[in-house]
């Protein structure tokens, strides 16, 4: 069994024992609690760590750190209310361009980065296009809805989102008449959000569409107009009744395909993008998730697991553009101008509020082609430049000195530890460190650029 071999992932994922996989990881001499595992945890459960966070995590161990990442001590609610107000003041604009910087600032500053990370995940799952919705206030509220349940309950999120005005407008369901039921919205719900293709029929969609009739978006408000509701009997997913919209949500949550789809998607976010997990690995989590649809419990279980801290998961995910840039920003303990950052992220393929299609961002290896690889290196260069366009907000030398590294080479080694926990092969380390050292502060910016441009840093 894989549990015994800890240097590489097993050649066949089927040999992984689910019981072992999902049991909490306990550090031991073979699998010690170290900087590499601390860095891994912060890449997945946050947007990367600064040096003090890594040190504290080393002291506290995985269990307490994960508790803290799931539910920090800080007043998260107050922080988010403040940002909700900032967003409201921008919502008069008719473009999501006004919202994007606020979300990025939230990600950079939030005392609860995992919440933002999960909100972004759900934004890809319930993917809407701001350009189609054409209402900044509704787009802002939709993401706030996602944030409200991002680590809450999936059943509540599904209920809220199936009546969210932005969702309805995006899915051509702004006027859902009895005579012309909208099939787009139930199709998205079944194919993308809950069941996945192959787990429903065209008939299920047509019947569910009838159950959703009567709902309208009027002046940005959702209204139910009883005379437009089709109250006749429907046959949906093998059951018959005078179903309405809430019944459809209930039926979807009852299907075993729903928790399976979500567990697999979260597996890609938190464990690995390289291998599809076996049914045996997915099933125990799907079953426990279906009982309460408690997202934090599922995420916590995955983060605490043996599998999470094993080579199956380590660097087995390609950072999204947001994760890539925030990893640099977080490590260097600053924030950077967010309007510009939002535009640059769009060029890397991740335009917040504008996922490419209703399937969200495909992610993984689709983030990477030569042009986006070049764009990542150039964005990192801009972020680390002492001048425009990011105004030199990131200062690797100041951070290295703060943590006790004065000379050139010591500071460079510190950056390798900070960004990659020193985990690069000798040849790579030599290529990074071997150069003439002249003006120290300029040099360190360049070294930082080289480190964050390494293939290893593109992985989460």
């Amino acid at each position: 069994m894989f549990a015994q071999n800890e240097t590489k992932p097993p050649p066949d994922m089927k040999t992984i024992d689910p019981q072992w996989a999902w049991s909490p990881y306990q550090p031991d001499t073979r699998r010690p609690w170290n900087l590499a595992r601390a860095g891994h945890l912060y890449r997945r459960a946050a947007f990367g760590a600064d040096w003090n966070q890594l040190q504290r995590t080393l002291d506290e161990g995985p269990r307490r750190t994960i508790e803290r990442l799931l539910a920090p001590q800080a007043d998260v609610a107050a922080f988010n209310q403040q940002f909700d107000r900032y967003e409201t003041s921008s919502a008069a604009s008719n473009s999501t361009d006004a919202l994007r910087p606020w979300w990025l600032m939230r990600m950079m500053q939030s005392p609860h980065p995992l919440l933002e990370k999960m909100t972004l995940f759900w934004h890809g799952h319930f993917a809407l296009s701001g350009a189609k919705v054409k209402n900044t206030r509704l787009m802002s509220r939709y993401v706030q809805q996602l944030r409200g349940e991002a680590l809450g309950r999936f059943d509540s999120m599904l209920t809220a989102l199936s009546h969210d005005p932005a969702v309805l407008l995006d899915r051509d369901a702004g006027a859902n008449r009895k005579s012309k039921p909208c099939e787009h919205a139930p199709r998205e719900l079944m194919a993308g959000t809950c069941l996945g293709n192959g787990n429903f029929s065209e008939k299920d969609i047509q019947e569910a569409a009838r159950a959703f009739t009567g709902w309208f978006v009027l002046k940005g408000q959702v209204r139910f107009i009883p005379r437009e509701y089709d109250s006749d009997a429907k046959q949906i997913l093998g059951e018959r009744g005078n179903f309405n919209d809430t019944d459809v949500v209930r039926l979807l949550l009852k299907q075993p395909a729903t928790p399976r789809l979500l567990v697999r998607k979260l597996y890609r976010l938190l464990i690995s993008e390289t291998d599809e997990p076996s049914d045996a690995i997915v099933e125990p989590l799907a079953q426990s998730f279906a009982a309460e649809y408690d997202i934090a419990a599922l995420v916590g279980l995955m983060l605490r697991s043996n599998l999470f801290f094993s080579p199956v998961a380590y660097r087995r995910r390609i950072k999204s553009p947001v994760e890539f840039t925030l990893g640099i920003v977080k490590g260097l303990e600053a924030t950077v101008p967010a309007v510009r950052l939002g535009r640059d992220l769009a060029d890397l393929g991740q335009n917040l509020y504008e996922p490419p299609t209703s399937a969200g961002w495909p992610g993984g290896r689709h983030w990477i082609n030569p042009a986006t690889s070049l764009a990542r290196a150039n964005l990192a260069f801009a972020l680390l430049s002492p001048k425009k366009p990011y105004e030199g907000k990131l200062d690797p030398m100041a951070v290295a000195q703060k943590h006790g590294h004065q000379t050139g080479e010591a500071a460079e080694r510190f950056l390798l530890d900070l960004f990659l926990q020193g985990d690069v092969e000798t040849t790579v380390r030599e290529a990074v460190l071997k150069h003439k050292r002249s003006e120290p502060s300029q040099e360190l910016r360049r070294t930082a650029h080289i480190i964050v441009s390494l293939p290893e840093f593109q992985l989460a």
Partner: protein
Amino acid sequence: MSPTRREFLKTSVGTAALASLATCPSSLTAAVGARRDSGDKVLVIVELAGGNDGLNSIIPFEDDIYGRSRTTLRLTRKEVLKINDQLGFHPALKGFRRIFDEGHLSVLQGVGYPKPNGGHDGAVMDWHSAQPHQTNRQTGWVGRVIDSREQLDSDFAPAVVVGQINRPFCLNAERTIVPSINSSRDFVLRSAGNTESLSDHHRRLVESAEPPRTESDNPLLDIVRKNQLSAYSTSRRIDEVIQKIPAMEGHYPQSLLAGKLHTISQLIRAETGIKVFFTGFGGGGIGGFDNHANQRDNHAALLRQLSESVAAFVDDLKRQKLLDRVVLMTFSEFGRTLKENGRKGTGHGSAAPMFLAGGKLKGGLVGEHPSLTELENGGPKHHTDFRRVYATVLDNWLGFDSRPVLGDGFAPLDVFET
């Protein structure tokens, strides 16, 4: 690294050309630098945003209905650049006329689609998605083409948007990220300079990506590394082209569109493997093609910019012996109404001509000029569906099967030399 190469690097820094060489060790070129097949085809799409007046682009100067309907905007037999005894180019289309005579321009007449949308947003979506009147349109026609490629990362980028503020929907893809640039410099690895310390930085960047990760069997690490090395080598080629050819060489006029086409020419020359370029000009606002009032001078200026820029692009590619690999295609969301609107302008119409420019075209007029008695939305009715033109450039030029992208029933037009 061998001592001789290290010596070479040491002595080579300081001059720009050699510094850019130093960024790409020979082993790297061998690994990823296989040059493109010179037969690789390129499509350049130019959007004339706002609705170009087809009737004042290719002018039926002998048709009385035309003359009667356009009391202030009509162009007479004496003014037009005659193609035959019925039709002529707008007088501002001198460049078009010249490349038409050289056989490098095909004019596809009467292009549109059934039940044309009369509003900008709807019509733009119809042309960009190539799925007119459908709801729930998620991807553009070029986006679907590039998503259908088997090898997702074999090229630097399959398509690129040049100099556009907003991302055109036709490149929206489910899986493929399409970069958007303002100049070729955006595709050059930053830090490339000619001072010693900067090129040293550049060298470290490449050399730290280069070593194969021996201890790892992580497929993601290999994918990232391979794409980075390919990016750095393409960046070097683009840099070389920029260094070799000073700005706007090739006698491009000073215009926004000419600048964009010049950028595209540089990227074609650098053998980037980019198959589709998208750019555009005009727009719905002031200075765009949407001329509801006082159309004459504004429209003439736009056509002049279009024709001079495209002609300069054709000349440039011809000189570089690249013209046989390139087709440029214009489109606009609709033509304009036959009748003037009383404000010396025109309203939103329907069918209009599309222009194709390139080295492998048969050239000439393709299809009849549409009738001025059978109108739709107040403009000429189409006889050729625009999806047949898309099918033409997909099936007979880029070599992609158009059916999964456009559906069945759009036969390609016979416009290419065999």
